[in-house]
């Protein structure tokens, strides 16, 4: 894992003032503190911050092919590099190193831009092809690894984090009101948008090409108009009728066995590394499965890492210990409280580069710190199982609402919702019906599943100077336009899975709760459930045995039942959460509130309304989910404005590479 960055001159002649590589690479040195490398030719500069995991001796980057005509800067892993290397050598390619990076270069030579379709992994990379005078940018299928681009004064800037682009002198993008409108609707910005004006992300599952003479239609803003994008992968599902069909016991056993085989392969291939690999253990089904697979199918002596909470409402320590004891791992825990969450919250926002609606990333920042302090650079986690195998309540909720919609007058059908959300038993049933009944019968709406969540999140926009209803609606239209062929023919649960994977998973879970918190302490996360071969297979399993009645991840549980203690297998899913507004009623939290939630006429966040929210918070009356989201959003939003605005240079100053830290690479042709 690493950080990448670069600059390409759109007119083909790059003048790169001194010190720019040191700024762009240095500001994201947390992503790869082991080595810093750079390379350039007349038109392109490539930068790299390395976290050494595979081929420690010769895997330095940027790296080139035999004649120096193709150069790469690469962040991530291509796990099937050993098989690909053999295939490429059989075709006559000569590989000098034992790194996956070099395999990508030769795969590009052999298969062109379509090389990405052969990679099993998590990656973002840039390839400079000097013969064809072009730049290829690529991002993995689920968006595990980030990649941002911006156009600035005739230059294309790119990097693993927005701060790398922001470090280019004179490029100081403001927070984007349209981005805030999207975050207060979907929780995330919808690709290609980010939280900053003029900064775009390469959407997951896409490649982007920069050429002197671009052909085909220009991409939508804020993507630079000279780029040409192509989508090479998206999640797929069965047509609704097949998805609903009954599966007999024999077929279920066969599907469960194949699932198991593919899952084992996905986990084992993710243990390829030249450094020790550990695992996160939350105490839930998914991470317990991952850890158990490593234990059963390898001779790997496993170390596991967990986060616990002093507040028992959030704590799952007992389950974590139960699982660790079951498979005999060496287990360590870090316990966090509100003070700890508040104390690291500003750094969490600096790493996330977006407003966040929950504090839940903060404990994961503490967890990666624990792994790092135990000298681990790589961990496997259970991330992705809920999306791929239908584990979330939002899928069950959509199923209940669609069932209810078939007979809206049957009032008891809505009562099924309290089976999903036991806390709703405290809510008046009439109101429950009214809330979840919004848009009830519009089951053809592509976002049927997400309407209640999005409607509630939209309430947070009241804190903005401009709620941005038009921008939120435009983003929805963009999502609709990007839906794949066949989407309309999928069932309720499949559509919900697709929407969840392409919004919340990519934009929040894999980013603010994933890559950013892990890389904040130079730790790489690997996610067996997000192996695309497994996800493609899961897409062919009928929804009727993924979400069986209202039992979530039923076929997964069937496939791994023998690996787990029965109580872990059967326990109801506990969503991972952390104390939100309550965390800031602590010394560290009060300091942040005083520093960031006061009057600020230049802010996109409305001072008067924030004042009312803070008064409610001080009175201890922030009860609802929405109030907690609003408080966390406003605080993180204000921190983002300052630390990426007037405060940026101060943060950058301590991070710029010192003389001698950066190594310039050269090859045969350069």
């Amino acid at each position: 894992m690493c950080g990448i960055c670069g600059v390409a001159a759109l007119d083909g002649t790059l003048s790169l003032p001194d010190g720019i590589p040191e700024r762009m690479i240095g500001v994201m040195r947390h992503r790869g503190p082991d080595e810093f490398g750079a390379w350039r030719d007349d038109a392109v500069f490539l930068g790299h911050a390395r976290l050494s995991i595979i081929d420690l001796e010769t895997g330095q980057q940027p790296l080139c092919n035999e004649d120096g005509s193709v150069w790469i800067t690469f962040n991530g892993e291509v796990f099937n590099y050993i098989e690909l290397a053999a295939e490429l050598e059989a075709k006559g390619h000569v590989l000098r190193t034992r790194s996956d990076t070099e395999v990508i270069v030769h795969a590009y030579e052999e298969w062109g831009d379509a090389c990405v379709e052969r990679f099993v992994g998590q990656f973002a990379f840039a390839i400079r092809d000097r013969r064809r005078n072009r730049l290829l940018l690529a991002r993995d299928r689920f968006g595990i690894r980030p990649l941002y681009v911006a156009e600035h004064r005739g230059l294309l800037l790119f990097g693993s984090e927005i701060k790398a682009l922001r470090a280019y002198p004179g490029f100081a993008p403001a927070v984007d009101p349209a981005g805030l409108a999207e975050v207060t609707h979907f929780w995330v910005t919808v690709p290609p948008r980010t939280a900053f004006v003029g900064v775009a992300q390469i959407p997951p599952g896409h490649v982007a090409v920069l050429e002197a003479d671009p052909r085909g239609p220009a991409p939508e803003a804020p993507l630079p108009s000279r780029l040409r994008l192509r989508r090479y992968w998206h999640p797929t599902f069965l047509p609704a009728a097949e998805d609903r069909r009954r599966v007999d016991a024999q077929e279920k056993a066969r599907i469960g066995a194949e699932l198991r085989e593919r899952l084992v392969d996905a986990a084992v291939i993710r243990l390829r590394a030249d450094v020790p690999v550990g695992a996160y253990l939350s105490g839930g089904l998914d991470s317990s499965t991952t850890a158990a697979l490593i234990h059963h199918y390898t001779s790997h002596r496993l170390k596991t890492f967990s986060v616990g909470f002093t507040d028992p409402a959030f704590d799952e320590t007992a389950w974590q210990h139960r699982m660790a004891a079951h498979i005999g791992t060496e287990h360590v825990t870090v316990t966090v409280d509100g003070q700890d969450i508040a104390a690291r919250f500003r750094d969490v926002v600096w790493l996330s580069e977006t407003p966040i609606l929950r504090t839940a990333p903060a404990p994961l920042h503490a967890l990666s710190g624990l792994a790092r302090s135990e000298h681990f650079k790589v961990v496997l986690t259970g991330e992705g199982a809920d999306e791929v195998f239908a584990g979330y309540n939002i899928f069950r909720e959509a199923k209940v609402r669609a069932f209810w919609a078939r007979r809206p007058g049957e009032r008891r059908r809505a009562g099924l919702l309290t089976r999903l959300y036991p806390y709703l038993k405290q809510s008046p049933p009439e109101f429950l019906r009214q809330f979840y009944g919004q848009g009830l019968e519009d089951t053809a709406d592509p976002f049927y599943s997400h309407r209640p969540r999005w409607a509630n999140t939209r309430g947070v926009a009241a804190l903005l100077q401009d709620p941005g209803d038009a921008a939120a609606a435009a983003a929805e239209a963009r999502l609709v336009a990007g839906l794949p062929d066949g989407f309309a023919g999928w069932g309720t649960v499949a559509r919900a899975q697709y929407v969840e994977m392409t919004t919340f998973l990519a934009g929040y879970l894999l980013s603010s709760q994933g890559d950013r918190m892990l890389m904040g302490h130079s730790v790489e996360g690997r996610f067996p459930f997000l192996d695309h071969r497994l996800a493609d297979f899961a897409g062919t399993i009928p929804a009727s045995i993924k979400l069986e009645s209202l039992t979530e991840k039923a076929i997964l549980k069937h496939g791994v039942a023998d690996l787990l203690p029965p109580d872990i297998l059967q326990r109801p899913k506990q969503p991972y959460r952390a104390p939100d507004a309550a965390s800031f009623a602590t010394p560290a939290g009060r300091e942040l509130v005083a520093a960031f939630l006061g009057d600020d006429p230049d802010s996109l966040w409305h001072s008067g309304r924030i004042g009312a929210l803070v008064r409610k918070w001080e009175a201890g009356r922030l009860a609802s989910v929405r109030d907690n989201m609003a408080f966390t959003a406003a605080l993180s939003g204000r921190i983002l404005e300052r630390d990426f605005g007037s405060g940026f240079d101060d943060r950058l100053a301590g991070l710029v590479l010192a003389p001698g830290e950066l190594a310039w690479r050269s090859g045969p042709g350069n």
Partner: protein
Amino acid sequence: MSARDTVRAYIIENFLFGDAEPLADDTMSLLDGGIIDSVGVMELVAFLEQEFGVKVADEELVPENLDSVANLVGFIGRKQAA
């Protein structure tokens, strides 16, 4: 302050963070308008009990009593008269 003004002021301060605009008129649904969620209903009930000294029974937790400023004012009036 009239009951209507007290209720409006509470909703604006507590659920709209001081912004009166979304509360277009006294008959609009607080739930459909996205002003409160189902937890917000409980906050609202706690406010009524504290501010107006009324006791709200479970069977009274229905939109006809609680889901607009007008319904709330009517409900408070009926409770206080009882």
